[in-house]
């Protein structure tokens, strides 16, 4: 595989322009932590790790501008140092594919729309990308969005760029919204609930004024002990204590709520975020549904041998299941949602598109939009089998 490693915008333009002229296909990559998502493809790699570093960070303005190849760990360390965080909880996919941790970059997590448990209450990658500079498939540099939190000038192209999987343009600079890190965080848990009971408890919690930022459920099958339903409550110490007490009352009909010690809680949330309980082997699907429909989905998939866990109060179901791709997609769709094939053996990835197929009209529109940014299809690598 040829690799191009530009280190300046003009080199990047040359690389893209050259590829267009040569009829080559470019895959934008940095750390490669998500390289095993999608079909196999023969491509030229466009390595963006040369675009690395912090351009501007003004903690008081809650705004951070960085280059895309900057490692996520470096950005996390930087913002933690200012008592801030990326509220969408981006995470490194490397370990999910048995790759070494620490290679994920900020450009990669934004381009793949990666978010963790707090996405439930605090938004996703798309909600935290305020602006960017990029080189499109036309080999032209353009900017969109801005460097302030509140902005409606022009189309909101940052929304389109987040989760576009490098199919529109290569970003050279990203401006992100950062948030204050909560002073305290408590995790409360219920034990021994089944799927429906857990979703009922999470629904109750999310409908209360306890300001729960994350809610997840690990069924007994994934644990050495009983099933665990987890609730995260961030905030100022006194407020967290008061809300935990209230939560215990509200959730009494669902069981006895107890507080999980901090280190154990951190481990549990880390595991949920990185899908660790589903293990290093086997195919993994990510199913997005309206939360109330989550129990039905696992009722259908469990008899087929599925292992699963809920995040986002049931709105996100991580499923491990070897075959049955069609049934998984049909079940997700019947529940009003969609399913992404995240990890799978080569044969499956080459046969089943990673992203859930869209309706005819939406696919056609997406294709027109891709051609608008990339008329020659230089970023159409075949990875998504469309």
């Amino acid at each position, binding site marked *: 595989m040829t690799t191009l490693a530009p280190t300046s915008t003009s080199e990047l333009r040359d690389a893209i322009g050259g590829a267009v002229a040569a009829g080559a296909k470019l895959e934008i990559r940095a750390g490669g932590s998500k390289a095993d998502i999608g079909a196999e493809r023969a491509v030229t790699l466009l390595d963006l790790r040369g675009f690395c570093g912090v351009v501007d960070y003004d903690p*008081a303005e809650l705004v951070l501008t960085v280059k895309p190849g900057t490692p996520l760990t470096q950005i996390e360390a930087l913002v933690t140092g200012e008592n801030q965080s990326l509220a969408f909880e981006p995470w490194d996919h490397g370990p999910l594919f048995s790759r070494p941790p620490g290679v994920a970059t900020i450009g990669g997590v934004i381009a793949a729309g990666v978010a963790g448990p707090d996405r439930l209450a605090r938004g996703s990658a798309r909600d935290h990308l305020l602006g960017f500079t990029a080189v499109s498939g036309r080999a032209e540099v353009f900017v969109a969005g801005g460097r302030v939190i509140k902005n409606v000038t022009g189309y909101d192209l940052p929304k389109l760029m987040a989760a576009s999987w490098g199919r529109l343009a290569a970003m050279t600079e990203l401006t992100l919204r950062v948030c204050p890190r909560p002073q305290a965080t408590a995790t409360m848990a219920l034990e021994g609930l089944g799927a429906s009971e857990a979703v009922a408890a999470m629904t109750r919690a*999310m409908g209360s004024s306890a300001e729960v930022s994350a809610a997840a459920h690990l069924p007994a099958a994934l644990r050495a002990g009983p099933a665990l339903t987890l609730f995260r409550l961030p905030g*100022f110490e006194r407020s967290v204590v008061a809300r935990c007490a209230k939560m215990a009352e509200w959730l009494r009909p669902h069981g006895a709520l107890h507080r999980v010690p901090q280190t154990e809680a951190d481990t549990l949330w880390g595991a949920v975020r990185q899908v660790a309980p589903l293990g290093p082997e086997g195919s993994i699907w990510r199913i997005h*549904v309206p939360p109330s429909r989550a129990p039905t989905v696992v009722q259908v998939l469990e008899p087929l041998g599925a292992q699963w866990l809920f995040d986002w109060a049931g709105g996100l179901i991580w499923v491990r299941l070897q075959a049955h791709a069609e049934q998984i997609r049909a079940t997700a769709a019947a529940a009003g949602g969609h399913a992404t094939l995240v990890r799978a053996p080569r044969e499956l990835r080459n046969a089943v598109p990673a992203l859930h197929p869209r309706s005819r009209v939406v696919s056609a529109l997406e294709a027109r939009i891709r051609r608008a940014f990339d008329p020659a299809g230089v970023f159409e690598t075949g990875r998504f089998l469309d």
Partner: protein
Amino acid sequence: MSLKMPPPDQAVLARRSEIIAALERLVAADAVISESAALRPYESDALTAYRQPPMVVVLPETVQQVSAVLAWCDGQGVKVVPRGSGTSLSGGALPLADAVLLGMARFNRILDISYADRVAVVQPGVTNLAITQAVEEAGFYYAPDPSSQIACSIGGNVAENSGGVHCLKYGLTTHNVLGIELVLMDGEIMRLGGRQLDPAGLDLLGVVVGSEGLLGVVTEVTVRILPRPEGARAALIGFPSVESAGQCVADVIAAGIIPAGMEMMDKKAIHAAEAFVHVGYPLEVEALLIVEVDGAAAECDELIERIADIARSNRAITLRLSSNEQERLGFWAGRKAAFPAVGRIAPDYYCMDGTIPRRRLAQVLHRMEELAVRYGLGIANVFHAGDGNLHPLILYDANQPGQLERAEAFGRDILRLCVEVGGVLTGEHGVGVEKRDLMPEMFNATDLAHQQRLKCAFDPDLLLNPGKVFPTLHRCAELGRMHVHHGESRYPDLPRF
């Protein structure tokens, strides 16, 4: 009026009666308005300096009718301007002489509410406030709260990506919409998003929100609803200078507090508001800050005390903390009435909407004072301080020859200033026609071409709401051509596939 709209297509104007007859076949008999007196109420939105009666108004009731009207117009090369409640402050719903005005007022039903999924599914003509009213009995609300919320439609909110005083903590419309049904100019009906978080492919919903009626007509909206916070408390803080108020805002955020709302008013706005609503605003201060926190009682009590400490350390000269709802609402009464209050101290006012990095506030306010002197017009400032969104109100008298033009020129200079200090032209009101010709201040021709090609993917003949947002309308065929940059190819041996 200095604004130039695309010249009306004479061939379309000549076919007006034929067009009206065709539309009458597509919608209910009473849903086509063509008499000139009946068209008058539609001739402007809330940016009333610009007026133009539409060729005809259509008020469809079903998505099939919207689709049929759009498809017919598309086939005939007739332009269409969507309209919600007509409260846009940027002229987004300004009609065109040769366009059909597509009014969405009859899409006024709430279709479904699910507390389990915490969503409401509504038609686009439902007002922002009506969503909250429909769910408040169950203890829920819809968070974005533009000051126009009793009147503005959720479809208009989606088109403008509207905000409100609580959006620092709860986000703009885009953060609170999960799905829409959209009809493209060619009549295709599609669903984007749904009741779940995140779409399957490209985030098309994300770009339709804030697209100012240029990409498609929204015929259904699924919004997130949130449980009402248990309570709220507010602080009303007066400062001897704009600088100290600005520092207080920065310090609140540096302390890790994201208030539910954080609003600033300058001296002119404070005096106007107090004279109007008599709520006891301090008149000796240079800047007034309202900071609101919400949540559990323990949260509110703790945060309001921290905020009070921060205010004191920034030399606040007056400080009041609300101890009950009545007091809290009193603090807000003046701010909420700021626009009409300013309307009483001048015959007309012109509301601007730039965003700046907060640290540049004092500098920007001083430059605005200088501009006010240069233009010989007054100015009052209200400011969403937490997110840097300024609303300068330029005072003028439209009956004095030349004043409107001076106010417009003053406004343009303010927005240029916002961009110059690292900010943007509009924080929540949209570009519309008002800031259209200023777009090059923020974006070069290549940036704008990339945006406009997105438009081409949705509406290749540029028939939906033309003349808005983009200073120059390039034909899509022209934009589509590719002039590839070769440079000296450092990579001569790329493999071909």
